[in-house]
């Protein structure tokens, strides 16, 4: 199916022209518009994940047939692309991804105790002793700790074991883990396709339901706000853990998300950009429009959120943090200062998304999940 999406201004002009011509299109309710635009933003995220995992699988298969340094680099590069796709998609915490603890099947994090290494080496040892062969049929029985993108990163990037990646048993394990993710990504992608019994329909139904009751309910806004809030919270954590306390000695690079591949900062950029796109719904009707449609104060909040996103993006894309890694950044005093600024900036953004936005939209955000009793 070919979907045409117009930039907001063009869409507005078309609407005005239609109205002047006497063909006024039926105005959709804001939550319904949000449901449609959300599906349009989210589906490509899972499609991209699925495609990049296929590429990773192809490169891993080629490498395993004939291991070489060049082949390993190809696998590593395609891992980066797949991980980037997952980072972009990982901000979605509603819909098909909530079935069967799916997010954990793509990424086990944080790994404070280096469990990934422990569990994978144990799985490889079992196979080496001939007790088990890891295949598509049984990989789902392995712990999620030893699967997912973190597992693949360990196998192909870890300085102590990546040179062994081409060994038959390790290769077999690698291919099984990638295959498992491919199947899961396809499931997610299918779940977001248009059609009956698929999530976009469910989302639309959920949005429509909101206008039938005694009070307007903003379910789609609620899902989006809670997803954005959770992803910002996670991003902050991904910085705070390696950053440690306020002195350079306390920085611990091994607590960075992807310390083996040195790609943690890239992931953060991707996540932030994806969060912003979810907020805007790309060029379509987004949470910014939703807020602006409430009143002047809503418009001001929408602007404030936009500025906060821009601030965080300008810090993470600054000269100081360009062409460097999180590992280096938490040890270098100038770069640490920038990381601290980034943490503050993301915290400000998170607070906006967690308080003013839901207050203005009249949606609850994590009442019981913050309880602690």
């Amino acid at each position, binding site marked *: 199916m070919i979907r045409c999406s117009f930039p907001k201004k063009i869409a507005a002009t078309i609407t005005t022209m239609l109205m002047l011509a006497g063909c006024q299109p039926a105005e959709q309710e804001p939550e319904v518009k949000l449901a449609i635009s959300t599906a349009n933003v989210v589906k490509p995220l899972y499609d991209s994940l699925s495609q990049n995992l296929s590429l990773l699988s192809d490169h891993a298969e080629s490498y395993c047939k004939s291991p070489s340094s060049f082949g390993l680099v190809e696998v590593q590069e395609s891992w980066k692309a797949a991980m980037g796709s997952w980072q972009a998609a990982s901000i979605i915490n509603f819909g098909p991804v909530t079935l069967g603890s799916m997010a954990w*099947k793509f990424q086990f994090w944080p790994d404070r105790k280096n469990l990934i290494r422990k569990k994978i080496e144990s799985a490889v040892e079992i196979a080496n002793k001939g007790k088990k062969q890891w295949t598509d049929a049984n990989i789902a029985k392995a712990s*999620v700790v030893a699967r997912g993108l973190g597992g693949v990163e360990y196998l192909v990037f870890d300085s102590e074991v990546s040179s062994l990646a081409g060994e038959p048993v390790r290769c077999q394990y690698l291919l099984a883990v990638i295959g498992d993710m491919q199947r899961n990504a396809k499931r997610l992608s299918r779940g977001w396709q248009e059609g009956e019994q698929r999530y976009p329909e469910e989302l639309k139904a959920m949005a429509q339901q909101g206008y039938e009751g005694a009070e307007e309910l903003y379910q789609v806004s609620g899902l989006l706000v809670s997803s954005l809030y959770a992803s910002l919270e996670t991003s902050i954590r991904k910085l705070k853990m390696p950053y440690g306390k306020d002195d350079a000695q306390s920085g611990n690079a091994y607590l960075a998300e992807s310390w083996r591949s040195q790609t943690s900062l890239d992931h953060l950029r991707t996540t932030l950009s994806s969060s912003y796109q979810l907020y805007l719904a790309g060029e379509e009707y987004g949470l910014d429009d939703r807020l602006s449609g409430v009143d002047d104060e809503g418009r001001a909040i929408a602007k404030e959120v936009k500025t906060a996103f821009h601030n965080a993006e300008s810090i993470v894309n600054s000269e100081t943090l360009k062409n460097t890694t999180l590992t280096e950044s938490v040890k270098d005093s100038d770069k640490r200062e920038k990381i601290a600024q980034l943490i503050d900036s993301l915290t400000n953004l998170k607070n906006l998304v967690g308080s003013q936005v839901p207050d203005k939209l009249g949606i*609850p955000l994590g009442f*019981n999940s913050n309880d602690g009793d």
Partner: protein
Amino acid sequence: MLSRREFLSQLLMSGAAIAAGSLAGCSFSQNVSPLLSVARDRKGQYSIRIFSPETVQQRILNIPGRAHGLSLHPSGRIAVCHDRRPGRRMYIVDLEDQSLSRTLEAAPNRHFFGHGVFSPDGNFLYTTENNYQKGEGVIGGYQVSDWSRIDEFSSRGIGCHELRLHPDGETLVVANGGILTHPDQPRKKLNLESMTPKLSYINRHTGELLEERSFGHHQLSIRHLDVADDGTAVIGMQYQGDKTDIQPLVALHRRGEAIQPMVAEDDQWLGLSQYIASVVCLPGSQIAVTTTPRGNRVVFWNMNARRQIASFHVSDVAGAALTGSNQVTVSNGGGELITYSYEGYDMKEASRLRYPDTNWDNHMASSTTNG
């Protein structure tokens, strides 16, 4: 004499319970069990609600702050709502005229931990409390006739939280969470390195410790529980360690045996986000239900096989209560009530209802539970 359920159904059917924000004129099924819960509205006002899981019908009784669990008197004519840690109030709800009949204050140097349970004859109420001078959990005993606090005995641990009555009618089953707190630092956990959670069986007349069990990692705080008809206790825990430590958060215990963890895959445990908010055993079956607002999940467990039999995603879900012979309802922070029906081990969502301007709090009680 009316049963508790009949009494509350008639109460709501009478229309006397309909309050602001509810839909007037809705009929109310005879089969339904009315529910009780604490809730918050958009203005931040907390209240105790008596409400229907079928249609938006409710009675709202405002209270000054956030509270926690509710206990239903065996007659069904009184309910008690317990303050949330470190609160010092206990609200007596008269269900006949749907009013707050009395507010009790905690004893000097005590605060409530949020749960209580009545004796089978309804003459006594037992509540979990903190003796914060000594840092010890105590069970406060109240005489229902005049609500006087007649005694207390040790909970046999630190940070007691939920307690239930064993089917023998004589034994209190107490979740001693092990976490030391003090009202001067209201939400701070003071002993995470040395905490020792326990499940304790205590004679409700004498305070005698009949059995006590520890389980697993010392930071697995035993906080919520329910006891099945056959005396099996199902416990829900909250883990105080790392987010990605894989710990069994639900377990069961039969008297005289060791605590047995439920069996689940690593991702299933991780998906519960180290936090169980409520536990309910379904009567006449070997099924238990747990909720986790952090993991946004309702899980049904087979107590015989000690495995998950069904799992549903529900945002910010916390409260759970029986609402019929084969149904259980859960509540969430978004004002939703989702009812599941079950036949054998086959679970399905039967209905979904949203109360406007409502955040349902951690616990619900129904007229078919002991609260």
